[in-house]
């Protein structure tokens, strides 16, 4: 049973590593931001898997913290960069 948890976590970690390609290449800032959303979701998945693996329920707190705050980045990007466009026009 443990081996499944480990394989899944390693797979998810490799997913994060792959997502870094978009950070490097992403032509616009929105592309790069989407990778952070991918990291947030994947990170939560890893934490959930680790919760099962380590049998430590408090890890769920970390997962929720990540994900309720993920919205802040999206709103921040939309609002902050929208204002910039408005100023330059």
């Amino acid at each position, binding site marked *: 049973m443990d081996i499944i948890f480990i394989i899944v976590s*390693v797979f998810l970690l*490799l997913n994060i590593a792959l997502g870094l390609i978009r950070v490097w290449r992403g032509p616009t800032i929105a592309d*790069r931001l989407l990778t*952070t959303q991918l990291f947030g979701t994947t990170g939560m998945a890893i934490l959930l898997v680790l919760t099962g693996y380590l049998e430590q329920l408090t890890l769920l707190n970390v997962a929720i913290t990540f994900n309720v705050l993920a919205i*802040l980045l999206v709103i*921040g990007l939309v609002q902050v960069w929208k*204002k910039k466009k408005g100023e330059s026009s």
Partner: protein
Amino acid sequence: MSVLIDILLAILVIYLALQSLLAPRLSQSVFLFFAFGLALALAWVRLGAVDVAITEAAIASGFLGVLFLDALRDFSPRSSEEQKNISTVQNSRSRNSVKSLLLPRLSLVLGLGLFLLIALEAVWNIPDGGGLAADAEKLLPQSGVEHPVTAVLINFRAYDTWLEIGVILLGLLAVFAVGKIQIYRKPIPVVDDILLRQVILFFTPVLFLFGAFLLYFGKTGPGGAFQAAVLWGAIGILLHLGGRPIFLLIPRWLGQLLLTLGLLFFLILGFLFIAGGATLFEYPPAYAGVLILIVETLAAISIAAALTAMFANLNQMKKEESNKIDSTN
């Protein structure tokens, strides 16, 4: 087998740390830094420090995230002409000020060097024999909480934590000092966007509830005032971004009260029991649990207010500056 996860995580953390410093573009650096925060939080989880992992997750991916995005906007030039303007201004400025800045710089380097030496001396002389862990463990029932980290932070080493709250306030004062305080009172136009409003309406109670949960959960497990404060501060930042700057809507004295409440109450509590023969920041064990909860709540409110004010003030300040540049052009 689980070593595989750890090795992968370690490589990821070091790679991301290096790349976020060395990446050629600022936007790459910023987003690599977010990824670094995530990897670091996972690493803390693997090391068993769940408290630190929550704080890392909240600060790195939430608060620093919006601050960096905000900063990124101001560092990305809107046109190549403007870029030229900025660089010429910077060049002339730096040429003029090199000589006059020599003395302050020298004294800064000397001061920092001295500080580092003192810090090195302090680290060098750590007493051996496992430190104070055994004593802290023994006194845990008297502390009023069950989670050792909270007991150390709010009870055994309350003095440190009190100063930490002060440090956050000091950071805010620095932001106020650099920006002009009048700008802080300037109203910003209300954004009327139905999608944005719905998102904020949905997330404000979620953030508040989860923050309150983390605050209360700090008594028995990982969580506590600082983590809750970031979540509550996120509410303030969301409202600010949605065109409801909270510090402009409430009277000024109330804002100042919110900012200083935690520090003030902690200080009063610290000295309160000296009259009864206790030492500084010693609570009577019978009431310790309740007192710690009150202190943590007020501290969380103050830190949340400080984080909100920091973001709001920086956001406003830069907008004002860019408006000024526009009008002079």
